[in-house]
């Protein structure tokens, strides 16, 4: 007869709150978690190997799928690396268009997170409200690029076509500014919400550094590290990186809400600047003849889920010799191993949700 006193619980890969196909193998004592072992790879599509067999322009459309909530960021990374390698300069308008769309995409991504996080906590309506606003942004993207999620809008040297329908973005800004207040009204001070998030899942800066956590999660632990501040693309835009010092799930929630507002500000600036500059003039790189000179190229960007970076090693051919993506969520999953130990099961779900893990980014 066995006298096992712990329970092994297999959470996922098909589970409503793992946001995709994450699998957590939990060891429980009652409902207390003794150990947590993430198992990933259920969505591994071999993006890095694919790059070695495709030319740059062939590879560009697939890049959006690395992070389906904020595909723009990854196209931007690839475009930027190729542009830097070939020494192409972006025109002023292209830069503004890119920043505007990136931030709009970040808003869409954070909105989904707000809904999904509250869904994890058991609240129903915020999900629907957030999705309603997200739908507006997706509709706009569809109008502009023809696709709701995989835009394939940034190309080497510029954008596919001139930006249009600026009044739609203005409406999005107007609506969202009011709606974010509404979210805060029903969520932020809700006693059940605060009881479930304040003091839960505390991420000390040391632990965050050790686990290579970046992005909003790091900033909610009081570290001022926002790549956008040093990014040359964001030159001329005024915004404040959101820094909170509470370190818990609530801070991560609040930081994302504040970041939504900051992003709205950037989009607003982008629109006023877009109106000022004239027609789009850009010098596209001929995609059929792209050959990166031999060498190694590296660039990074502040994606919604932390630092995203790309590494390309080229041997002077039209295909990369090796291409490596670094994504934020991948390290967040690894952090669960440390963060969930000692928590109760339903807190664990909330903590895992608050880190904003998205599986295609983890599995690539």
């Amino acid at each position, binding site marked *: 007869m066995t006298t096992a006193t712990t329970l092994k619980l297999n959470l996922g890969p098909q589970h409503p709150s793992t946001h995709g196909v994450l699998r957590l193998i939990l060891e429980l004592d009652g409902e207390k978690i003794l150990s947590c072992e993430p198992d990933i790879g259920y969505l*591994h599509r071999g993006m890095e190997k694919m790059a070695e067999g495709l030319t740059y322009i062939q590879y560009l459309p697939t890049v959006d799928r690395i992070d389906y909530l904020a595909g723009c960021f990854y196209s931007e990374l690839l475009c930027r690396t190729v542009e830097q390698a070939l020494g192409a300069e972006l025109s002023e308008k292209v830069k503004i268009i890119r920043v505007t769309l990136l931030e709009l995409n970040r808003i869409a991504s954070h909105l989904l997170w707000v809904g999904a996080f509250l869904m994890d906590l058991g609240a129903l309506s915020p999900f629907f409200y957030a999705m309603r606003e997200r739908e507006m942004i997706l509709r706009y993207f569809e109008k502009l690029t023809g696709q709701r999620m995989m835009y394939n809008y940034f190309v080497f040297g510029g954008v596919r076509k001139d930006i249009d329908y600026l009044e739609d973005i203005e409406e999005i800004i107007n609506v969202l500014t009011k709606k974010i207040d509404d979210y805060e009204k029903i969520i932020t001070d809700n006693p059940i919400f605060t009881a479930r998030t304040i003091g839960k899942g505390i991420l000390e800066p040391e632990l965050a*550094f050790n686990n*290579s956590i970046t992005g909003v999660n790091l900033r909610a632990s009081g570290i001022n590290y926002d790549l956008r501040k040093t990014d040359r693309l964001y030159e001329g835009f005024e915004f404040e990186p959101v820094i909170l010092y509470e370190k818990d799930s609530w801070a991560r929630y609040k930081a994302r809400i504040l970041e939504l507002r900051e992003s709205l500000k950037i989009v607003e600036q982008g629109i006023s600047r877009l109106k000022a500059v004239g027609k789009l003039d850009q010098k596209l790189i001929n995609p059929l003849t792209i050959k990166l000179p031999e060498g190694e190229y590296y660039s990074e960007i502040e994606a919604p889920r932390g630092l995203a970076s790309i590494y390309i090693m080229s041997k002077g051919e039209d295909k990369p010799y090796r291409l490596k993506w670094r994504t934020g969520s*991948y*390290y967040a999953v690894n952090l669960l191993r440390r963060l969930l130990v000692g928590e109760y099961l339903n807190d664990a779900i909330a903590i895992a949700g608050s880190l904003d893990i998205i599986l295609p980014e983890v599995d690539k």
Partner: protein
Amino acid sequence: MNIEDIKNIVSECDIEDNKICVKSRIYDVIKCLKNEYSFKILKSITAIDLGDEIELLYKLFSVEDEEEALLSIKVKAEAESVVDLFDSARADENEIYDMFGIQFIGNEDLKRLYMPENWEGFPLRKDYIQDDTRLAWNDDCNNA
């Protein structure tokens, strides 16, 4: 960051572009960088298959000085693990083990990560043949 300090640890060390190439004892170098120069974040470990050997790139980052350090080491089939120093290395090393088949000495729980347990071959190696004949349903076809 002072290159002399690193040279004290490993004598064979040279700088290409902005990359510090070492031949051995990567663990000690990274430990030194972490403890004495506050490189607290290991942004990523990248592996590149160069044909006969595999290059590992360690990208370290210091938040206080906003400074980056890029370390490179070329290995055959085994490498030193830095799991003791950085938790995040556990994920990176596991990924490299899965994709390139490199054993990290000191990392206890290396396992297939992205691929199923019984998968053969290491996909990101250059000699990996991408054929479907080993997959279950194609086996059936061949037998029939």
